[in-house]
Every structure is written in structure tokens, then in C-alpha cells.
């Protein structure tokens, strides 16, 4: 009982902190860049990270197994991964891009996980025999870390596409433009400010900043996607080794497996497209955006169907 209360408290705290962080981002974007406020949003993300960590640990203690046995837990783990990526110091340099991507992503996953849609599976279920293995931790955590990083990276690519085609969007659809620049305009704005400080070049500043900004987005998304690709590779391979222990075959073309492989192939295509200089930028961003959709099919779509050997992750949408 005490555990579930604690869990509730932690869920709500982390959720509200993420909402506050997003509000702060909006304020700094719309009103003015207040350094103190911006710092507090940083601290907010760190708080969120610790809250979700606490949430996962609580669940681990009272269920007795690693909390990754159903969709709810994996969603919580996904938003934990988002906040982890956010606070990893390595990415601090790209903070501006990533915090704009991660905040909303974390709030969406957590919002979805805690919403009424999935009430049935909140309780931590018992672990079916096939899941009782040390491989569970390795396989699932790697997969979800991979998903998180790939989602971030491909969202950056989506942002790149939106910004690169901004004029197009603007003329054709004002609304789309608003949506697109909602989060990304903020970072572009901040980046421009930084560039003004750093750079004193004289030729057509606006276009120059834009192209430089697009290039930075491109590099940043490439790095994040490469990192996610590593996690995805390790996740798929450890899953294959596990399957060879539990199901008797390292590859059985199960739907989830197949879609994970499709995701892997799509991002492999992304990495290969980048080796050609002519195709860098827009083309690779398009592939990454396709990858974004594929990840969601892999993560949710297959579970929604509830077929195959991974069916314990399945769920049914209940509307109440």
C-alpha cells in the first residue's frame, strides 16, 4: 500500500515538473530569455529524472522484478530514458535542441502512460516464465534506450525538415507553420542570439544563420541517432541471444522482432545516406522521419495487435 502511494506521488510530481519545464520553455521563448528561469528548467529536468528513477526503483522493490514487464512500465522507462538523455553531460552542448525535443516527448509518454487509456495494466503483473531471465534487463532496457535516443534524433530531423521548408509551410498553411515553429522556433531563436554573440560575419545574416542552424540540427540529430542505433543493435542482438535460450531459436520472424529489424534497417539506411555528401541534410532527414513512424509502429502498433511471441506487452485500449 505504501509503495503504491509513493508511486502515485512520484508519478504526479514528475509529471507536474515536466509540465512546468515546458511552460518555462514557452515563457523564455515568448516573453524574454531570463537566465534564472532557464536554469530552473534545467534543474526541473534533473528533478524529473530523480522522480522517475524513484518511481522505477519503488516498483522494482515491491514487484520483485525489473519494472519492464508491461507497456505501462516500458512507457515510464521511456520517459526516464528521455530525461536521462537530457541530463547526460555529453549532450549539454546540444542542450538547446534537445531540451526542446525532450520536454514534450517526456510529457507525452508519461501522460499517455498515466492516463485512463491504460488503467488496466497499471498493476505490476506477474512475470511469465519466459521473462524470468537476466536478459530481460539487458534486452528491454537497451531497446527502450534505443527507442528514446532514436525518437529524439528523428524528431530533430523532423524539426530540420520543418525549418528547411518553412517558407513553403508558411505560404501554404499558416497553422502548420505555427505548429512547427512552436518548439523549434524557440531554439532557433536562442541559437541565433548565440550566433550573434559569437559571430561577426557580414554577409546576409538571416540566411546564413538559418543554414548554419539547419546544419547544426543535422549534425546533432546524426549523433543522437548513431547513439540510438548502437543501443538498438545491442538490444536486438541480446534479444536474439535470449530467444535462443528461451524459445529455441535466435530469430523466429515474430512480428515484434521483424519490426525492430525494420527499424534497424531504416536507420541503417539513414546512416548510409549520410555517407554521401550530396544526400546529407534533407534526404537523410526524410528517412529519419520515416524512422520516427516506424519506431511507433514497432513500439505500439505491434503491441496493439497483440500477436506473436511478444504478446505479454500487448494491451487493449479501454475508453472509460
Amino acid at each position, binding site marked *: 500500500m505504501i509503495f503504491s502511494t509513493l508511486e502515485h506521488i512520484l508519478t504526479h510530481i514528475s509529471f507536474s515538473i515536466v509540465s512546468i519545464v515546458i511552460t518555462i520553455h514557452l515563457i523564455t521563448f515568448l516573453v524574454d530569455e531570463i537566465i534564472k528561469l532557464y536554469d530552473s528548467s534545467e534543474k526541473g529536468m534533473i528533478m524529473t529524472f530523480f522522480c522517475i528513477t524513484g518511481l522505477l526503483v519503488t516498483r522494482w522493490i515491491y514487484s520483485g522484478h525489473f519494472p519492464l514487464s508491461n507497456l505501462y512500465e516500458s512507457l515510464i522507462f521511456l520517459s526516464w530514458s528521455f530525461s536521462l538523455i537530457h541530463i547526460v553531460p555529453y549532450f549539454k*552542448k*546540444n542542450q538547446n535542441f534537445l531540451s526542446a525535443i525532450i520536454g514534450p516527448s517526456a510529457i507525452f509518454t508519461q501522460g499517455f502512460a498515466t492516463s485512463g487509456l491504460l488503467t488496466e495494466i497499471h498493476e505490476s503483473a*506477474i*512475470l511469465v*516464465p*519466459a521473462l*524470468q*531471465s537476466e*536478459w530481460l534487463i539487458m534486452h528491454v532496457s537497451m531497446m527502450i534506450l534505443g527507442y528514446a535516443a532514436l525518437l529524439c534524433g528523428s524528431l530533430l530531423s523532423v524539426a530540420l525538415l520543418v525549418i528547411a521548408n518553412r517558407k513553403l509551410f508558411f505560404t501554404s498553411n499558416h497553422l502548420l507553420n505555427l505548429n512547427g515553429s512552436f518548439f523549434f522556433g524557440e531554439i532557433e531563436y536562442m541559437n541565433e542570439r548565440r550566433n550573434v554573440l559569437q559571430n561577426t560575419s557580414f554577409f546576409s545574416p538571416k540566411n546564413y544563420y538559418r543554414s548554419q542552424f539547419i546544419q*547544426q540540427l543535422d*549534425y*546533432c540529430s*546524426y*549523433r543522437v541517432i*548513431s*547513439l540510438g*542505433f*548502437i543501443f538498438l*543493435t*545491442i538490444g536486438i*542482438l541480446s534479444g*536474439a*541471444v535470449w530467444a*535462443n*535460450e*528461451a*524459445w*529455441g*531459436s*535466435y*530469430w523466429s*520472424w515474430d*512480428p515484434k522482432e*521483424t*519490426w525492430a*529489424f*525494420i527499424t534497424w*534497417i*531504416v536507420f*541503417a*539506411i539513414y546512416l*548510409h*545516406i549520410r*555517407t*554521401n555528401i550530396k544526400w546529407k541534410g534533407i534526404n537523410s532527414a526524410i528517412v529519419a522521419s520515416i524512422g520516427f513512424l516506424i519506431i511507433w509502429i514497432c513500439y505500439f502498433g*505491434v503491441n496493439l495487435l497483440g500477436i506473436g511471441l511478444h*504478446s505479454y506487452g500487448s494491451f487493449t485500449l479501454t475508453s472509460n
Partner: protein
Amino acid sequence: MKAFSAINSTNPCLPKTHFLKVPIFHPFFKFNPFSHSYNTHAHAANRAHKLPLTISCKLKSSQDVKNKGKSVSQKIVLSETSPPPLTEDDSTNSDSGDVPQSSMKKKGGPFEVLIVFRRKTLQILSSLPLAIADMFVAAALMALGTLIEQGEAPDFYIQKYSEDNPVFGFFTWRWILALGFDHMFSSPVFLGVLALLGASLMACTYTTQLPIIKVSRRWSFLHSAEAIRKQEFSESLPRASIQDVGTILMGAGYEVFLKGPSLYAFKGLAGRLAPVGVHIALLLVMAGGTVSAAGSFRGSVTVPQGLNFVVGDVLAPSGFLSSPTEAFNTEIHVNRFYMDYFESGEVSQFHTDLSLRNMDGKEVMRKTISVNDPLRYGGITIYQTDWSISALQILKDNEGPYNLAMAPLQINGDKKLYGTFLPVGDINSPDVKGISMLARDLQSIVLYDKEGKFVGVRRPNSNLPINIDGSEIVIVDAIGSSGLDLKTDPGVPVVYAGFGALMITTCISYLSHSQIWALQDGTTVFVGGKTNRAKIEFPEEMNRLLDKVPEIVESTLSKQADSISG
């Protein structure tokens, strides 16, 4: 330029080269006999050798040293890049690209056509657009394979994808059956795409990736400030010394090479070479997968507790290379099957105690297996995959025990239910009635009377009698049967090797290969560099490092100038 030549001839870097550490890739040194000879010494005893070496250098004229250096390096380059002439020519004809070309041309004939053909195919196969298109097709086919139900009877497809209502206006069962999409992952189309992918992987590794190793092992100094300025990152440091730049770069983990006024430094070379490893690992996985598909046996069996079976009877070959082994004669006896339960009563794990006996009936192995803990013997792996309840042992009015066979009952959901029936009264009458017994697991049996009313629950082994319709029933035991999967798979070691290599090389591939060139021009140092992956971090890192380079004040500068000229 005057400054260069002055510096070049007297080689001022020599007294300072104890900065250099020995790089991992020794072949580098062969291009530069100077630093090679010196470095090894310097590594062994840092400062002790300073004096003798400077003396030895002074003995030779600068021109001599230069020429000698050149000729030696060229010789070594030759032996590195192309095979020794003539003697090995014949033996390398079949697998080396350029050397046979010239010798074959003289002969002419069909070989030339073959070689041109081979070259064309290699060129086509290793082209990036083809590989990318192929990957897209493979991904699309796999997606299709999960959307179309697999392994159903033809009638199913004829009904579901009828010609009256084609998907997207053209996709009907004829497509599915003609292209073999009802068994997508073994259909010729899909396997062909995979084979093409494998072929282009091989071609790409051979024509593009392997040369990368050669190219990246070549390292060069840039001798003009222009070339350095053209790099992605470039900076000029007035009043700085190139030695300081070298020290700082070395402190940041770079391999640094100094030669005269030029500096070359690199970091993360493994990151450039690792993709080659990724491709080779993928080929290994594909090869292992092919071996698995062609040479494995599989089979599954449900064995009630206490019975036995012979391995060879269960296993069926899956490919043309499958050949049975000695171990196929092993007889397997299921000593015991039992289950663990959670406190809530749900099944947590199931175990089977197996004894393996050879032809002579001698027990060669005994192990209790469970899900996630298979048994391995002589290339055969036995997995615990399933369970069921085979029979109930009961006493009726203290007679028996009788064995009642249990049958699985179809219910909604994935929970198992087994049932059996004990007739009461006249068995030959048309509407025979009796006692029904249902069980979800081996823990408890639910009993219903002949009207279908619930009577009670009994645990096996409890010996607690229950009275139903006038007869006293004791449930002695519930006998489970173990669902076992057996397989032999010669491809697994190869695939695992590929997996291991793939994991490691993908991780290494994240490293960014950074190269830095620097040139001392008078008192100014030009620094330029590029990296292949971490494009954002690299300029920042460089700026951070170059900030550390000390500015040389006039007095020390003149001192350095003295040491250069002297």
C-alpha cells in the same frame, strides 16, 4: 618558405621528440624512418638518448638524410601496398584485382571478358543507391510479411484477399500465392532480396571498405598554410610554438607526429575502421543464418511424466545439409515434471527432470530444465517450452487407481484449461452422464456433479475424499506432461561470433576520427583539422585546446629562434 627550409634542414624537432609516444599502428613509422628510429629509443629511455642521437644526426648532411629517408619510405610503401612482383603473380590471379589485369590482357581471350564482367558486377553491386534501394525493399517485404497472415492454407487467402475486393485495387490472393507471400520469410523473393543484400555487402566491403583501411593508414603532413586553411576547422595562432600544440594535443588523447615545422595528429582512428568490422560481422551473421537454415534439425514433443522418447524420432531435418549425428540415438526419459506457483496461484515456472541414456541404456546426463534454462548435449539442445496435463489418477469407491486422460478445452484468453469426465451409471446408454473434473494447473482440481453443479475443489495428494452422486472419489495425482522443443543448429557459433563482433564494432563506430594538421610559419602556427562524425563537438574541443596553447613572449621566442638556427 625560407623559414621552412631552414627548419627542415637542421631538424629542430629531434631534441624535442620525446613528446611523441609510440602509436598503436606501427606501420605508420615505416613512412618516416626518422621518428621511427628515434621513437623506439625515446620510448625505451626517454631522455638518456638525446645526446648520441643528435650527434649521429650531425654526422650526416641534411640532404643525405632527406634522400635516404625518402628512398626507404618508398621501398616500404611498395612492399606494403602491392604484393611482391612476379613470384606471387600466378597465385594471386584469382583474387587480386589489379595485378592480373595487366598479365591477362596480353593473353586476351575469355578471361578478359570475365574480368571486365566481374569488375562491372562489383561496381554495380557496391553502388550505394542499389544497397539503399535493396534495404528499403527488404524492409517493405518484412513489413508485408507481418501484415499478411503467414502459413495459412491457400483457401484462407483466397477468401480474405478475394478478387472482388482487392487491397489497393490490385492486390489479391493470386499475388500472395504466386510470390509465396504466404510464407514470406522463406519465399524466394525475400530470400533473393536478402542474397542481393549480402552480395552488395560483400562487394562494398571488398571495393570500398577494405581500401579505407589502406587509405586511413596513410598519414601525411601538410606543408602549406593554404592546405591547412581549407580544412573544416582552421585557426592561426600568432606567437605560438608547434611543440606546445603537440603537447596539448597529446594531453587530449591525440597521437601526435612532429616532423620539422609540420605536425600531424589524429584521434579515434578505430571509429573510421570499425564500419568495416560492422560489415564483416553482418556477413558473418548472414553466413551463420544460412548454415542454420540449411543444416539444422528441429522438433517438438509433449511427453507425459514417466515416459521416454528417442531424440532421432522427434527431430526433423530443415535443410539439405542436415545430417544426423551419433547423439540422435540418445533416449530421453522424463523423470519428473513439476511447476512452481506464485502466492496468487499463477504458474511462475515449470521444470522437467530429464535423464539421457545412450544406446546401451547407460545414463549419460541428467538435468532439470526449465524455461530459459535449456539442456545441451552433443549438439542437441532441449528446451522447456510448454506444459499440459495428461491424466488424473483417481480412486473411485476405493477401487483403482484409474487413469483418466485429460483433454485441453478451448476457452477465450490465453489461460489453459483441461478437463476429464468420469461416467456414472450405465455407460452404454445414449445420454451418459457423469462427473466432470477441470484443472487449470497441477495444483487443484475442480469437480462438478452430473447435473453440472459445482461440488468442490480438491488438491492432488491431499487424499481427501469427496462424495459426488453417491460415489466417493479420491484424487490421487495429476500427471503433467512436459512440452519440449529439440533442435540442433550448427550455425549458432557462427551467428554468435557475428553478434559479438557486431556489438563491439557498432559501439566503436561511434568514435569520431579527427585529424589535425599544424604548421609553424615563423612565429605563427596554423592549425587545421577535420573530423568525420562529431562535427559539432570538434570545433568546440579544438577551441578549448588551442586556448591552452601558451603565447610566447619575446624573450623566449628569440631563444627558440636561436635553438632553431643553432
